């Protein structure tokens, strides 16, 4: 049975482009132009992954409402927000609703497919049995590449897919600087401005600090990039 991906996007052209590329990659796509039709369909049957636009026509926060509905129906369903809105407030909202990823338009379809793949794999991993296999420990940090989970001092850190990739990239060579260009590639979003990278790093730091107020492993190398400060003990 083919994996079912739900797309909720009010713009017909974009919706059909997503459908085309995902169909071409072998997914079964169900596309909805608005919240009522999507809600009705989700009540009947849950998809394996949902791609949601936040603004749906006149419905300013329609995507958030749908996310909450889906989260009620399934706590583990991978949800990707795909939106033109790029404010911290929106990102935080999406995080609160435990969306798995937040991508701003314009999105590269190639990267979109890669993300969908990655998220479905994680979802699959989580449904079978969470193991500590494939876990790499970097000091107090534990990175599970397979299930794309990060633990800091044993506590899970709730990161989005992009944020995970950034941490994973930084910790691959602790103590070495990751330049902005390298980090930009890692985010798999096409061209990414320094400021966007700074935003990701800021949000990641805040998430770590929520668990550990003294967290200071991610160091800024001004004008160049960031590095992960290894444990010295």
């Amino acid at each position, binding site marked *: 049975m083919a994996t079912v991906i739900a797309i909720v996007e009010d*713009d017909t*052209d*974009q919706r059909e*482009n*997503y459908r*085309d*590329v995902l169909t*071409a990659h072998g997914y079964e796509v169900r596309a909805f132009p608005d919240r009522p039709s999507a809600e009705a369909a989700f009540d009947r049957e849950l998809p394996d992954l949902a791609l949601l636009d936040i603004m749906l026509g006149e419905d300013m926060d329609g995507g958030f409402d749908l996310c909450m509905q889906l989260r009620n129906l399934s706590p583990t369903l991978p949800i990707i927000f795909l939106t*033109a*809105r*790029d*404010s*911290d407030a929106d990102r935080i909202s999406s995080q609160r609703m435990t969306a798995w990823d937040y991508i*701003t*338009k*314009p*999105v*590269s*379809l*190639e990267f979109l497919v890669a993300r969908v793949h990655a998220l479905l794999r994680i979802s699959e991993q989580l449904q079978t049995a969470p193991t500590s296999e494939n876990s790499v420990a970097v000091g107090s940090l534990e990175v599970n590449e397979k299930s794309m989970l990060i633990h800091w001092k044993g506590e899970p850190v709730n990161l989005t897919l992009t944020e995970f990739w950034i941490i994973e990239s930084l910790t691959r060579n602790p103590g070495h600087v990751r330049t902005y260009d390298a980090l930009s590639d890692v985010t798999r979003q*096409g*061209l990414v*401005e*320094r*400021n*966007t990278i*700074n*935003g990701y790093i*800021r949000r990641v730091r805040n998430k770590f600090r929520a668990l550990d107020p003294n967290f200071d492993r991610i160091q*800024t*190398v*001004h*004008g*160049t*990039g960031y590095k992960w400060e290894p444990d010295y003990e």
Partner: protein
Amino acid sequence: MNSLVGPRSASSSRGRTGPGNLRIRKGLKIRTKLLLLVGLLLVIPWMGYESVREMEKFLLEGQEQALELTTQGISSILGNRTDLFDPEVGVPELIGRPLTSLLSEITEPLAIDAPPEVWTSAVGPLTYFSGSGLFECGPGYRPDSLIVRHGLALNQDAVFAFFEIDDDVVVYRDPALLSLDTNDQIRITIQRNDGEILRYLLTAQEPGRFSVYLMRANWRDVVDGQALRDISGSIEPLAGGYAAKLRIPRDLLGVGARLKFEIVDVDNPDDRAVAQIISTEPDPGSYEFGSVRLVTPELAKLIQPLYISEANITVWDQSYRVRAQIGAIIPPAREAFGLEQDQAVSIFQALQEKIIQFFDWILRSPTRGLADMPDESSTEDQRILARVLSEGEPSTERRRYGEAKLIVTASPIWAQGEVEGVVLVKQSANKLLALQYNTLQRFTILFLAVFLFLAFAILIFSTRLTYRVGRLQRETEQATSSEGRLLKDRIRAGARSSDELGSLTRSISSMLHNLGQYTRYLERLPDTLAHELHNPLNVVNSSLENLQYHHAELSEDKHLQRARNGIGRLRSIITSLTEAASLKEALSQEQEQLERFDLCSLLQNCVDGYQAANPGHRIVATLVPTVAWMHGVPDRVAQLLDKLIDNAIAFGTPNGLIVVNLRIIDNEFEIKVSNDGPALPSEIADSLFDPMVSSARDARKTHLGLGLYIVRLVAEFHKGTVSARNRPGGSGVEILVSLPRDLNA
């Protein structure tokens, strides 16, 4: 994009230079203008003064006419009454000043034989009789021939009279001649209180004692041939004349007596005719020897009811003799004019006194004029009498004696076709003047009060107005920064008042409000625009990718590549559009995330990074301090520096040198990033740090003018300032950023 940048920079530059070029005319402030306007009120007292003057003229004419009518009335009453003017009827009366008014009082009696100097000092200042008056002398008066200086003194027993007489020829009595009036002599007329008139003639045959005779009215016949002893005197020759010393016992005079001296001059020792007479009592009545005055009691009774206040009515006969008189020109009590000198008790009264004195000085109080009123005016009276008597026509004149004004009317009295006499009425016009003066005084005080009140009110009003205008001006100026940025979008002070200024305030306030909304719209515009562009861009992007996916052979297609490049450029535009807006939002949340960091190492790191990323340029850091602690968000400062370097690369020459300089100026760090590009156009120098302002003219590059706006936002977030200037020498631009130091090191 160019259409967005162009008009804004153009309009802002035009708006900035416009008022600067305005030449402001020199002029007065509102308050000064209003006060000058009040000053125009000073015309009112001038008008008042003029109208009072006109009124005076009118009233004087009225008074004159009334007086004329009165005079003519009296003259017609007295017409055809020859009996009244019968020269044989009447009571002679000597009119003159009371004796006491002339005297200086002494205690010791004066000796007749004492030298003239003793007498002179005793009698006080001598009265000067030049004989210039018509009645003092005959028409042929020669001053070189006769001048009299006269003084009187009084003790408890006697009256002492002293004369200094200039006489070219002194003619003594010839003992051979019997008659007494043919030599230089002194005549004394005494009118006692009971009406009895005594006439004494004093003459001498040689220097020494006078012989004294009691004379009849014609001064020719002796009543008693005996020389008298009760009046004694002596004559003493002086250079150019003689001195005469007389002693008159007070018993002779009695109480309330009147006294007259006449100096009779005879110059020709051969014919011994009287050349001239000078009288100490220059009364017309004394012109006729002996007949002092003929008062007709009936006439007096007739004119008694005609009494006019402050007027003097006299009736004269053909011989210029007063037949009746009533009233006085000057009222007996001058206090009627309010001249009484109160003892100023309180300060207020003293002040009032001063004010009245001031008015007297300014307006020439007519009561002062009364002092100029002569007690006698016989010469002028005689002139008008002569005219009326000869012409038979009524006559009126106005006389001025200094400040005093006198109206004189004369009207002939007819009897059997002949002019029998004249009615002469004299009235002072000073009463009118006093009235006028009082009016003027009241008016002036009233005016002054009104003027001061108005001036005060207008001063207060204009001060308040100026204050309000100034406050509005201040608030309006404070509403925008010197770069033209809107700092507040309403004016509160004075917006509630209902007048035009309040309405102006409200207009400006609403204008600012609209401007604020528009500014906010403009500031939001990039964000809105970016958001709206994202979706179509995503359509194009995803469509291109689908195309490529389904047609793998097209992946190297040059047109597809170009479309991708276009999308890439569109993306970077949109990103920079949103950057400023999201930065503002982000900064407002980062207020609590400030930390202490070393600006020096941050700059050094950044510059190293920039150099690595831009091998085409030389980027050099010249950092004066080794450590520079500041308080802020290092990421944002790095972002600021990103923009400065981006800007320097964009506007500098290719392969040029970019210098990042840091130095400490007082409590601030100054970061200076200089490039060697072309100078800034002066018209955008002020607005360079505003959004959507760029000096870029190269259409191939994308310059939204948001980079330096971000620099400003970050600097202002750190309570710093930004400025731009051309480097001295014509090429190269410096952007200066001042950030406060952390002094808690």
